[in-house]
């Protein structure tokens, strides 16, 4: 089953670069190590870090028009910073990987299954 791991971080700290070079290096090292492990285990599907939230353009529908505005969806303190997709045996394994990100980097991580377009057999009564 594939899961997407969505990591959220504090918007202000990220935009202002409010972290020490050591912290930054430690996070980079952690992600490099994790990436290596998941590639070796054959569980890595894809992973990207995002650009700063200020580069975001948000599109939404207003009436019949599609309106583009600058910035993320809403005024939130936590913004999406990276995502990875893993293909793992079960949810417990996805949570284990996400837990390591939380412990090492301090970001909040959402774990959601990725439906794959398959459907079971429907036997109606």
């Amino acid at each position: 089953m594939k899961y997407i791991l969505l990591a959220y971080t504090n918007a202000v700290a990220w935009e202002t670069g409010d972290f020490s070079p050591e912290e930054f290096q430690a996070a980079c090292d952690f992600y490099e190590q994790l990436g290596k492990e998941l590639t070796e285990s054959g569980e890595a599907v894809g992973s990207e870090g995002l650009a700063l939230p200020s580069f975001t353009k948000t599109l939404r529908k207003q009436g019949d028009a599609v309106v583009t505005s600058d910035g993320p969806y809403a005024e939130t303190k936590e913004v999406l910073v990276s995502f990875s997709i893993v293909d793992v045996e079960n949810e417990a394994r996805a949570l284990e990987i996400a837990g390591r990100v939380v412990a090492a980097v301090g970001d909040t991580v959402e774990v959601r299954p990725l439906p794959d377009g398959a459907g079971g057999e429907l036997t109606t009564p």
Partner: protein
Amino acid sequence: MTAARIEDLLRELAPQALGALVRHHGHFDTCEDAVQEALLAAAQQWPVDGVPDNPRSWLIRVASNKYTDQVRSELARRRREEAVGQEPAIEVGGSTDDSLVLLFLCCHPTLSPPSQVALTLRAVGGLTTDEIARAFLVPEATMGKRITRAKQTVKAAGAQFSMPPPDQRAVRLAAVLQVLYLVFNEGYTATSGAQSIRVELSAEAIRLTRLLYRLLPDDGEVAGLLALMLLTDARRRARTTAAGELVPLDEQDRALWDQTAIAEGTALVTAAMSRAPLGPYQLQAAIAAVHDEAARAADTDWRQILALYDLLLKLGDNPMVKLNRAVALARILGPRAGLKELDRLDDDQRLKGNHRLDTARAHLLELAGDRAAAVEHYRTAARRTLSLPERQYLLTQANRLTS
């Protein structure tokens, strides 16, 4: 010979060549790489130069050369310039029994199910890593690592290239059947996305199960699984609309069912049940056969289906079987009787949050005339399923009842 025929031939020969190589050299992991290289070479050369007179020994010879090359370069890397290649010639005669040993090896208990599946498709099925990766919608590098790691795990476990000891045979065979069924379902339930690639997985699962059936013709569960696959796959064309929407069994156009597959599957399961001890695959195949032999949905012999579910429950306590049994019971005694049975499943932790319980309840409530409750359960089921086509189907049912 056409490229497609050559591909079929190569897939058939792949496990035989691998078996011959492993018997001769040992080292399953290195031999597997060598056979893959030989398969690639054949896929490139045969369509141009023609198929060799004895394709099997060609493949074994080329794979063996690749193996020797690999071992040589390995040795060179270790600066040990000992000569290889002075070994006696490989026994080309070999039997297809090697395929069975390979299947057991690929479904080794130290491997996780996804790894068992990947290794089986490559080593026994002769599929390339890229083909397997596309079928499971993961990058080729990911699938490559999964296969490499699986081979290392098998090696580290000290697995031998021989049949499992008799006392483990049944458990190990069950794992093989489970893997083949996983591959089949992966292909059968695909409704969108890379559908055509995934559908080939069902064909591949049937091919490998046929191979297993040839090797173990007296095993009732092997025959049962092959029958179950054929009887299920027979309905493929009727199972979804052109737009990929799911069509429930009752509403399928039965003229689209594959009667040849149904006849073969029915004969297989009938023969198996009359001589082998009953097992879950045989019983599931028998249920599929009862559905398949009904010319119209209304002709379905629900009493026989109910009896088969009762037998399945005797083999083991399984909440999904109980759920299906409740549905069959509803067709005989009416929806209220079925709903009563479903109520008894509410406390089963194994079904907690499972959309199938909500789906069954919604259908039965609709049959009982309780539209409002049916809509509610269709919507709950739609919320709970992880399958997009199922979600679509369930929401359509809810909307149909509210409009």
